[in-house]
């Protein structure tokens, strides 16, 4: 199965949303972002990684620090809407899978 990050899954998490809101105001270093949260730094790094993989944020090396910036255009991209539409079909067909297996069991 192909593993592809879903931007909507990315923004479903409150910490990741808070990170995006922070970055909306300004470009920030990884360290400065981590300081804003009362959670372990590796946890924040993990969140940053998810956001990067969804291309909602972009990383830039400046000297010894990595700075992050928001890619707001990505969030409004029609393909983001499309991924939601795709999800409807996925959910719908997963329900059909369940129905088919129920019917097959009852026939035995």
């Amino acid at each position, binding site marked *: 199965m192909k593993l592809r990050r879903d931007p909507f899954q990315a*923004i479903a998490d409150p910490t990741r*949303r808070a990170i995006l*809101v922070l970055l909306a105001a300004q470009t920030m270093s990884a360290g400065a972002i981590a300081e804003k949260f009362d959670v372990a730094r590796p946890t924040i790094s993990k969140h940053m990684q998810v956001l990067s993989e969804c291309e909602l944020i972009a990383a830039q090396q400046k000297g010894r620090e990595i700075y992050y910036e928001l890619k707001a255009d990505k969030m409004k991209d029609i393909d983001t809407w499309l991924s939601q*539409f795709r999800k409807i*079909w996925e959910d719908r067909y997963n329900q059909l899978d369940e129905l088919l297996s129920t019917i097959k069991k009852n026939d035995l």
Partner: protein
Amino acid sequence: MKSTMQFDFIADKKNNTLTVKREFDAGRQLVWDCHTKSELLDKWFAPKPLTTKTKSMDFSEGGHWHYAMIEPTGTEYWGLMSYQKIKPIERYEGLDAFSNEKGEINPDLPRAHWNVSFEDRGTRTLVHTIATYNSLDDLEKVIQMGMQEGLTSTMERLDDLLEALNK
């Protein structure tokens, strides 16, 4: 349970089509029945947490399926599928529309032509759906409506976020 069945979802913005291909672990007759009998459609067509309710069904050429997708809050979205061509357990074509409870078609909302075919894949069945819209605008509109129907809570989260971003 996560499905490991083939699933392709392709939006072609040049031809205004959506193509969805999905494999099911059941024979063709059963998969066909699930697409063409209202008592079965009612059990899967609307994605959770929505439910499906059929008002009337006449699965024949010239007939229609009049149904609603209902949100947990009770909000109903009515649809009407008019069947044009039917070749049992192989293929059907129809014209989809948004309607009201009386079955009157909403002319302001996009309609799509659906071509749904069923193929044997060993003991499995491949369902191939091509939905064709009149224009790219229509396609984009329906994508946005789809999200209203199915994913209100996710969208509320996105709305909040976009609002925060725009401040």
